[in-house]
């Protein structure tokens, strides 16, 4: 059929299309729209404080971006496939706590666990807990068909409560060496967490661009019915993405715990706002089907740079929250116009 039809004249078609051609490159602009913003922030940081452009400071910023970055990575995948998961911010705290609870000795320490499993299983356990939380969210959304926003909000609260119950409201300081390694290690002069985070973003970006199941996320988020009628297993893939999101949050928990050497009782508390802000600033649509991981990464860096510049600028601590919210709103507005797209 294709051969026969190729002979059709297409001259007028070409002429007509040319008149309505949108700039082909324009669609890609929104992915890099934050790069100039990051540059401006760098200049601002340099003006504000000579300490900004030091190796230690920049590495500190990047390291702090890793944990938030992994949450944003997970949330971005979930948002692209047209869902949302608020409970990631609790997963980052609960997954390490649950893992440590299962491996910590039952007697002797400040924190008394069950000692069911050997200490080396802490990392896989933590990841499994994260994936299980994501899968539970998937069960609620896909099998029971409850509203994802409220279901994961409930999950957020419930898991936060579980975290507090298990840890008895205290920080857990005695972390097995295997569990703390990734968060502390430095590879080639840069924290291992940074390498891992970059690698995961690259992996995720490649999967979205070059794997059929990755590409399916855009179709599912853009129009689930169309994806279904094209033979894509919408529910199964969505479920997988939710589990991956939980897994990434748990991994962020491992890095965070290693970085600070302890799981605090409020680990991750209130992060979800920043996660969504970074994703949206970075061009991920809350309605699904649109956005790139590179954009999400620039969103994370933008937020972290803002906080860093404010800290260096000597903003009184009691005002940081106000300014943080204000700057996120400003960043949203800027990226709305540099990106040229509605953020719906």
């Amino acid at each position, binding site marked *: *059929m*294709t051969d*026969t*039809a*190729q002979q*059709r004249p*297409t001259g007028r*078609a070409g002429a*007509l*299309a*040319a*008149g*309505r*051609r*949108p700039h*082909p490159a324009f*669609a890609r602009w929104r992915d890099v729209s934050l790069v100039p913003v990051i540059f401006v922030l760098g200049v601002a940081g340099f003006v504000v404080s000579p300490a900004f452009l030091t190796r230690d400071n920049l590495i500190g910023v990047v390291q702090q971006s890793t944990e938030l970055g992994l949450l944003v990575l997970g949330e971005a995948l979930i948002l692209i496939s047209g869902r949302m998961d608020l409970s990631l911010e609790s997963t980052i705290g609960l997954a390490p706590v649950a893992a440590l609870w299962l491996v910590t000795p039952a007697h002797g320490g400040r924190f008394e666990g069950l000692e069911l499993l050997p200490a080396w299983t802490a990392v896989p356990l933590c990841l499994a807990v994260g994936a299980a939380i994501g899968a539970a969210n998937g069960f609620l959304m896909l099998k029971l068909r409850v509203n994802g926003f409220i279901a994961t909000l409930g999950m957020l609260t419930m898991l936060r409560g579980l975290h507090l119950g298990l840890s008895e409201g205290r920080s857990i300081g005695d972390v097995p060496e295997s569990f703390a390694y990734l968060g502390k290690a430095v590879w080639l002069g840069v924290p291992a967490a940074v390498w891992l985070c970059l690698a995961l973003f690259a992996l995720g970006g490649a999967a979205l*661009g*070059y*794997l*059929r*199941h990755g*590409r*399916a996320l*855009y*179709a599912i988020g*853009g*129009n689930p*019915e*169309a*994806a*279904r*009628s*094209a*033979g*894509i*297993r919408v529910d199964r893939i969505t479920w997988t993405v939710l589990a991956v999101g939980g897994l990434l949050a748990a991994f962020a928990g491992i890095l965070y715990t290693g970085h600070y050497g302890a799981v605090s009782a409020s680990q991750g508390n209130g992060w979800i706002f920043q996660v969504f802000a970074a994703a949206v600033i970075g061009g991920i*649509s809350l309605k699904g*089907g*649109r956005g790139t991981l590179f954009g999400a990464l620039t969103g994370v860096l933008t937020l972290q740079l803002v906080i860093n510049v404010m800290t260096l600028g000597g903003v009184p601590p009691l005002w940081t929250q106000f300014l943080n919210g204000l700057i996120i709103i400003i960043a949203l507005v800027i990226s709305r116009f540099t990106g040229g797209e509605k953020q719906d």
Partner: protein
Amino acid sequence: MRNATEETAGEPPAVHAEGIVKRYGPTVALDGATLTVRRGEAHALVGRNGAGKSTLVSVLTGLARPDAGQVTFDGLPAPRWGDTAAWRRRAACVHQRPMTVPELTVAENLHLDRFPDGRVIRWRALRARAARLLAEYGVEVDPAARMKDLGVEQRQFVEIARALSDGARLIILDEPTARLDAGGIARLFTKLHALRATGAAFLFISHHLHEVYDLCDTVTVLRDARPVLTAPVAGLAEDDLVAAMTGGQAAPSGPPARSARRPPGEPVLHAEGLALRGAFAPLDLTVRAGEVVGLAGAAAGGTTAIGETLAGVRTPDHGRIEVRGRPVRTGSVRHAIAAGIGYVPEDRHRDGLVPGRSVAENTTLAVTDRLGPLGTVLPSRARAVARRMISALDIRTAGPGQPVSGLSGGNQQKVVVARALARDPAVLVAVRPTNGVDVKSKEALLGVVREVAAAGSGVLLVSDEPADLRICDRVLAVHRGRVVARFGRDWAERELVAAMEGVGAGESPDRAPGPAAPTDRPTDRPTDRPTDRGVRPQAVTETDGGPRP
């Protein structure tokens, strides 16, 4: 437009637009459009997708501000731009897509954002007012019913009543029949005729030229952002009208590519005893290679459900489906696609397209497993497939990377067809593929369907438009979930429509007189009840209508 006072001789027209220019960025949507609709006139506005019809409607309803030009209503200048209430009193528009709130009652929808009597809503009075309004226009709908519980037709009538209730004497109907079946269209036309008698003027936008001829006095053709023809409908040959729309020679009359037909080959799709409760009765169906089989009937009569069941979207209660002799798991789109059933869904916006994604992505949505090793999708291969499809189906796009939301309706539909064809299906199941596309695209799509068959696949074309079914080798007419008549290549439109509407055949399937005169070769048998099948197998199997010399 701000100081427009053009006096015309005698009675001023209901609306007069002069020299309207509208640009969207580099795109010129309207370039000096002129339109005059006299009072009490039914004026058709036709043109291909992208010709500027929608933009002109936006200008006439105050939704878009023209860059140049003037609009007058009844000889008076148009309201200030932005004064929506004033615009609404001038021109009312029933849009192509429903503009009602499904969760609210009919009464509330009728009074959206203009509740009477100040601040507090008095529900009883509101409902009474709504009832009066509906009665005034002869719409029999309970004002307290929720909008979503109404049928398509009733919803449309409510929208028309709402449009008229603002006092506008110009009613713009943007493809009002696209959502209706034949009976609904007939009732709509009756209503519109009655309204014209009261002096209302209509601007009627349609892709169906016969509707233009049935309803309208005058027709204006837009092409490439300009009006190219305004003429009385009476005495205008349909060929000339099509020529004006397409800008070229008149469309070849009759079905395209008739000569390309060849005798059908092996069965590619075979369904046996396929049934879905509440939708259609047990159905036996065979589609052969190189053959286009038409399934004629209204959407509510079960034809859409049959198509969706074959495509795996819906799970049948009984029966089985075979493709090239191999059974297909029913109720699974994946298995249907893998077995070789290509599917063009009825509603391209709902089931067919991912609007924000590119032509290449949409085209390759069902073939991603073939575009690279180990689950990868190589963009170069995806683009290659898309390019092949773009040229094969003559999709007008800036390139494989353009989002499909930027394409015209006809080209979007071609993308949906391309998605189904990208896998080289054994059989193509196309449900109303020409819905909401212009004449030229319609022709192109039907040509594609014929080519698919010529290339050795089978096609099942579900439609209720006789013009579309002309390309079929065989047509089964379905009424209320049952096949009520079978036709060969040559049939009279009247007979087919009668069969689809169930006239004379539907109620007593045992010995009903066939709707068609026996000039057609395939017998118009009453259809297959389960009980009939054992007794008279020849009445239900497809073989008796099979290959012809």
